[in-house]
């Protein structure tokens, strides 16, 4: 499977996700933000980091970059797009995903391992996870507090567009297991067509038991299968 990782000035998880993809047998290419052509890709990853220094608003400048025009085209024609952390913020800024990522509730950067409950696995990113299972991934962000309008939230819930929510170790979804104040503990969302996923947690950081855990692997193997 061919993947492309988009690199902006200020991206800093590009190498991490490329390493994970390559180790999991993707044929990966790095794509510079000034490029105006995408290599043939089955998956496009917009990695974490601080694209353009988070100036103006996280993701806002990246959303207007050359290569994003191509990403939007590819996404609209069904290519899988995964936005992680700053990548999620960029997808929101492009309008490919709806809602907003506000500053964390406590107004501080938060970096820690959190638990996620797999709410919906009937999509191309999560079908290797068991529904209702609890996995642990790492988060590291300043603006991960997901917010959206009531109608859209209902649409997300009703149409199984929320793949995972923050929970405690037992899987219960409550305020104390919400690390950033996200609405309904939402950690990631899909578009209606389910080919675009934006998520705050970093699956690429959890692909090796020797380093952390391997809970992120299934996300990538789901895409492969």
């Amino acid at each position, binding site marked *: 499977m061919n993947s492309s990782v988009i690199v902006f000035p*200020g991206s800093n998880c590009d190498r*991490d996700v490329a390493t994970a993809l390559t180790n999991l047998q993707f044929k990966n290419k790095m794509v510079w933000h000034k490029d105006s052509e995408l290599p043939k890709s089955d998956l496009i990853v917009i990695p974490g980091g601080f694209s353009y220094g988070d*100036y103006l608003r996280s993701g806002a400048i990246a959303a207007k970059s050359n290569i994003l025009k191509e990403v939007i085209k590819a996404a609209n024609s069904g290519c899988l797009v995964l936005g992680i952390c700053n990548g999620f913020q960029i997808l929101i800024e492009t309008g490919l995903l709806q809602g907003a990522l506000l500053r964390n509730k406590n107004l501080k*950067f938060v*970096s820690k391992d959190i638990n996620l409950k797999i709410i919906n696995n009937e999509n191309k990113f999560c079908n290797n996870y068991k529904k209702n299972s609890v996995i642990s991934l790492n988060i*590291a962000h300043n603006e991960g507090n997901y917010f959206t309008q009531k109608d859209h939230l209902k649409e997300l819930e009703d149409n199984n567009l929320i793949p995972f929510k923050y929970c405690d170790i037992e899987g219960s979804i409550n305020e104390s297991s919400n690390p950033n104040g996200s609405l309904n503990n939402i950690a990631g969302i899909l578009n209606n067509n389910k080919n675009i996923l934006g998520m705050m947690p970093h699956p690429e950081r959890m692909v090796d038991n020797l*380093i*952390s855990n391997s809970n992120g692997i299934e996300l990538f193997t789901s895409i492969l299968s």
Partner: protein
Amino acid sequence: MKITKEIIDLHGLKSEEYSKIKLLMNREPNYLELGIFSAMWNEHCSYKSSKIHLKKLPVKNKNVIQGPGENAGVIDIGDGDAIVFKIESHNHPSFIEPYQGAATGVGGILRDVFTMGARPIALLNSIHFGDPSNKKTKNLLNGVVSGIGGYGNCIGIPTVAGETKFNSTYNENILVNAMAVGLVNKKKIFYSKAKGINKAVVYVGSKTGRDGIHGASMASAEFDENSEDKKPTVQVGDPFTEKLLMEACLELMKKDSIISIQDMGAAGLTSSSVEMAYKGGLGIELDLDKIPCREENMSPYEMMLSESQERMLIILEDGKENEARQIFKKWDLDFVVIGKTTDTKNLSLKFKNEVVASIPIGALSSKAPLYDRKWVKKKLDKKKINIKEHKKIKFDKAFFELISSPNHSSKKWVTEQYDQMVMGDTIERSGGDAAIVKIHQKDKAIAMTVDSSANYCKSHPLSGGKQIVCESWRNLVSVGAKPIAITNCLNFGNPENPEIMGQFAENILGIKEACEFLDYPVVSGNVSFYNGTNNNNIYPTPVIGGVGLIKNLNKTKNHKFKKIDSQIMIIGKTFGHLGQSAFINELYDIHDGMPPEINLLNEKNNGEMILKLIDSENINSVHDISSGGIILALAEMSISSQIGVKIQKPQKMSNIFEYFFGEDQGRYLIEVDKNNLPKVEKKLKENDIYFENIGITQKEYFELDKDLKIKVKELYELNNRWYNKFNGLNS
């Protein structure tokens, strides 16, 4: 402008220093030249008070590729890989403007590392604040922690370990020390020494503004009540630009274009150009009209003394200009040829077609003042601490108070503001004895730690110096790493005071003795004097940053208990030394007495035994015993693993407080599977290593005979309460 006594004073130069300048110049300097001398001759850049002492430190062994004197130290870790690392202080700016002060401290130390061709792979820090009840502390803590996080998180280097401490000695002068560690191909290390004449001198990175002018001079003077006015001398950092600069430099370094490279740190363009020329025995000529400026009408004086961040000076090979320019253009950074190397051994500055300064390079570097300042030995504080003479306190109450005190509470509030996982190679994060970061896509790792013990160093600088080196060494050993070398950040008061100079001199001797004995040399470092306000000097606070190598990733250990019903053992002898311990310090407010003694032979034997036990895979977990003694170390093992303990008091024990809170050195706690116990005991006996079995691990409860019983869950809460409460958050 006529140089008056007032102007000389403002530049922090003594009158005899000014006379020396005139002698070296054969004339009066002009205002710009005076500014340049002041920038190069201040304590921060010249090391004039510390140099003769620093020379005593061991700086070499078979692993050292580069010792002190370059941007950072370099050690060999085999397979063609080398590690570049250094620690540096940013105390004065951080007290004045905590966010920017701390952020630019991180930025500066990162540049020192990638200047040498290394990709930074980890950040560490040691931060010291005043008493929590001091009204400035909360704001300073919040600012510094956000500043460190703000820079490291954005540039994408994990902040993997550190220490955060509180003591009223830092009320008016906090400490912010940042350490960076990078990985480089042994054959592609870059140095600052210029070579060849008529080579292009290139300015890259951010534009020059008026920020940070005289920053290094500020850092070379004590504070007074007007220190707040110094805000404009604090630099402003931009981690995004630094990320671009780092990527651009590392990309250029893959080619063969660079002769030498130097970051513009303290004293900016002045010190970088002088240093490159001096090391190469050359002169340098700069055309200041070409300097990219952020503000209009900047004077040569401002350009030469600005400490604007994220700038570098590069000397390029002939014919490589275009190739290099393309790379910096790709990253949207300035790239301007601003001058050339010469054979004049002179720093020559042109502005608007006029030579505005001309100074012999040697006058700025090798001929800078050097002082053998008067120092006095510290009088020994022979007072013995006898716990029985003091108010009675229940053991469990004392323990609960200590485990929830500011200095011994969990630092999660701090470390969760730092991205510890970016780059995807962090194996052990903050909270253990040392952090572990894997060498990318290789089967080995490095371990890192930063340590200080100001209380010990204050009461006995010599043994304090030994202790911090041993503590650093022990922390690396505890995770299974072979310690290789250290970097040190020496934070002291006013060196013109013979007592302070005595602390420094004796402390260096202590560091030297331990480093020599443990074959643990110093490869880089930084001295920060004048930490104090209105003649109140801080406690001597040397900070040691240690790096060790783990050859086999499957043989690392941490301090988390692994199983129920395994044996807990103490390695090393417990005498119950309470002098300068956290226990009497925090619970009884007693600050005198001697710190624990250091026995280097025991230290080495015990540590080497721990490494052997880890290597033979006979132990489950290891933790070094430090501040707070055995009981705090046990609590940390329990809290991190949610596994309890059942401990029995040894029969020979004289006093429960001395035994469990005493801070005797060279000790470790280990957890051993009962099946492995005979093997481990045999090994220890064969090697004459002193050990005691003190109990077992168990479910749920943290228990010591009839003196203490608490659920581990509650212990966790006690340990995690303070920071949230202090910052007005619900836990």
